[in-house]
């Protein structure tokens, strides 16, 4: 038997030298354009869709673009599943393996890893020359630039969705709260008061907040940190501990459902939708669901300022052009169409998502939607987590597990924050 394994291992070792030369000969073959200029410039564009409607919408926008653009650009749009972030991995794998698209939808948080491998195109010269550049405010451009860590502008903003608080006015009324909270303490108080036993059987049946203890919940913690005067740069300050304790207490005092530790988006949505929770922190993307479910019995307010400050996290969908794209000008033309052009307007009208550019603000969909005002107000205080090297690891793995340990009382708030600090800011 030993012989078998020994032979096996020897075989493995031997072939390892062979594989060294075998795997790396992936010279890039472009599926893209013909430089002669006569033929159409072809762009391969990958995107994810958050639901079937959006996937249809994207296809029709791209079709429209192909028919109307005067530069003979032909975009092929291919959908890939979001797969809780697996989308970005697919693109990474494809490009590293020598394939992949010319441009795609993108998440800011992936900027650093892609840039580190020199996969992203620097689009700053195109942006500088863009007449609509100023319609998107400077802070947003800064955020994009910071995300890659290489001083290049590679990730282009497409839609930003600042988080704010949705609540059920009927529950507020039942709990005797007269107006939407304007300070962080009032917010916490509202969470406490809207935790109710509505049928008198001695058990809580409405919880104040649909706390998101698992994936994505770190975005909510951010608001707590800043309200108490802490920030993402140092999670070990006394303010951060105070903030985190306030956060943990919501669950420990029973103001959030038992399922909070494993709750990601789906659980929090189900909770709010079924009336189990009085408040939920989310962005404009879900407003249509709530209006449809509750009619007038849903409203929103920005995450309020605390004694230390005001901050909310913004969700993002960006567009990025890859270094392997042979016609970056064409790609940028498509980007323009998707933001301040017709494509951006169409997308906004159906999804409520955009950048607040002129074409968007002018629509009746913008003016008539009460949530858009709250979203715009929230965007003023919005930011993202610092783009550290280990951000993805923090978001994908450390956050949930550490926060769950703290929620379940296995470790103290201080220790949890120390772990998070180490994970987020590892050199």
């Amino acid at each position: 038997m030993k012989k078998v394994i020994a032979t096996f291992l020897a075989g493995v070792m031997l072939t390892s030298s062979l594989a060294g030369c075998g795997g790396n000969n992936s010279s890039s073959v472009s599926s893209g354009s013909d430089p002669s200029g006569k033929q159409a410039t072809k762009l391969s564009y990958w995107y994810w869709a958050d639901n079937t409607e959006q996937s249809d919408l994207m296809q029709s926008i791209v079709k429209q673009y192909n028919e109307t653009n005067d530069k003979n650009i032909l975009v092929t749009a291919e959908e890939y599943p979001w797969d809780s972030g697996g989308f970005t991995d697919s693109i990474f794998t494809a490009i590293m393996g020598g394939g992949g698209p010319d441009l795609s939808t993108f998440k800011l948080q992936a900027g650093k890893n892609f840039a580190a491998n020199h996969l992203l195109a620097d689009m700053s010269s195109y942006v500088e020359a863009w007449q609509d550049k100023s319609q998107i405010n400077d802070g947003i451009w800064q955020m994009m630039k910071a995300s890659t860590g290489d001083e290049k502008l590679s990730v282009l903003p497409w839609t930003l969705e600042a988080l704010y608080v949705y609540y059920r006015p009927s529950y507020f009324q039942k709990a005797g709260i007269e107006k939407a909270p304007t300070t962080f303490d009032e917010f916490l108080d509202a969470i406490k008061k809207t935790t109710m036993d509505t049928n008198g059987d001695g058990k809580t049946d409405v919880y104040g907040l649909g706390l998101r203890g698992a994936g994505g919940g770190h975005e909510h913690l951010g608001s707590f940190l800043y309200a108490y005067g802490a920030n993402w740069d140092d999670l070990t300050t006394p303010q951060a501990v105070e903030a985190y304790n306030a956060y943990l207490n919501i669950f420990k005092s029973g103001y959030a459902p038992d399922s909070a530790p494993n709750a990601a988006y789906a659980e929090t949505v189900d909770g709010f939708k079924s009336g189990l929770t009085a408040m939920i922190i989310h962005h404009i993307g879900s407003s249509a669901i709530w209006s449809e479910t509750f009619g007038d019995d849903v409203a929103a307010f920005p995450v309020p300022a605390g004694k230390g400050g005001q901050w909310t996290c913004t969700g993002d969908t960006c567009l990025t052009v890859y270094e392997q794209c042979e016609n970056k000008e064409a790609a940028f033309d498509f980007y323009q169409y998707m933001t301040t052009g017709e494509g951006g307007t169409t997308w906004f009208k159906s999804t409520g998502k955009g950048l607040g550019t002129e074409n968007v603000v002018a629509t009746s969909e913008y003016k008539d939607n009460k949530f858009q005002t709250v979203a715009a107000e929230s965007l003023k205080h919005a930011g993202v987590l610092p783009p550290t090297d280990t951000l993805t690891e923090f978001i994908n793995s450390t956050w949930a597990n550490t926060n769950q340990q703290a929620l379940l009382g296995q470790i103290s708030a201080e220790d949890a924050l120390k772990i998070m600090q180490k994970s987020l800011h590892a050199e």
Partner: protein
Amino acid sequence: MKVKHHSAEAVKFTLTLVLPVLLFLIFLLFPFYWMFITSVKPDAEIYASPLLYWPQHWTWMTYEKLFGYFNFIKYMKNSLTVAVATMVVSLVFSTLAAYAFSRFEFKGRKFLMGLFLSNNMFPTVLLMIPLYSIMRSMNLLYTPTGLVLAYTTFTIPFSVWLIQGFIRDVPFSLEEAALIDGCNRTGAFVRIFLPILTPCLLAAGVYIFMQGWNEYTLSSMFTNPATRTIPVALNSLIGQLGVEWDMLCAGGTITVLPVCIMFFFAQKKLVSGLTAGAVKG
């Protein structure tokens, strides 16, 4: 199994057959049942409290949407093509190899068997980038052939070991008899072996088929919207804004049913060995 009309027999029958069958079916089918009724519930009832074990209003809208503009038939065709092709290729390759392993003595046999076994011990997530390069250099990216090749590779080890295990459980005397009777090796293989192996090949075939029908990771990487298979299509119903439960459940139901119906017809072959049992021994 004939039921005799003595009460003791009836009790025994209930305890050893009816009850276990019922318990198994409840456990195995309940999640499926839940998936199915979720797919025919209107949205409001999916989140109703208290839970509804039977929909108050049936709606087939989801299925219309699924086959209408979601174009689920296309993905089913893709999955079917890939699954059937993989099944055929992998089964042929595996049977040949398994036969060699179990009925021949040759140099390097143990090493090769070990190699086959170790093939699946490595998590696929780490193989993706090199695999993508390989597929690309062979011009197989986004083609059903590429997927068939990948699935064949990942199902061969299992099938080889499974089939050689089966063969080893088959008494050697049978084949010997055929060889003595003047059959050549190929004749012995086709006339004696294959019929006895039918249940085993069927089981292995079902395994390979399921793999092709259900696999997600490789398919998500090596297909594009035109060649996409069912699991990837279903996964695109899970966006950042949550899960389209009704569509997902309808898709799940439709994924499961045809295979079960196919299996219903196939299983007769699976147990046909019972009647052919007299041949063996």
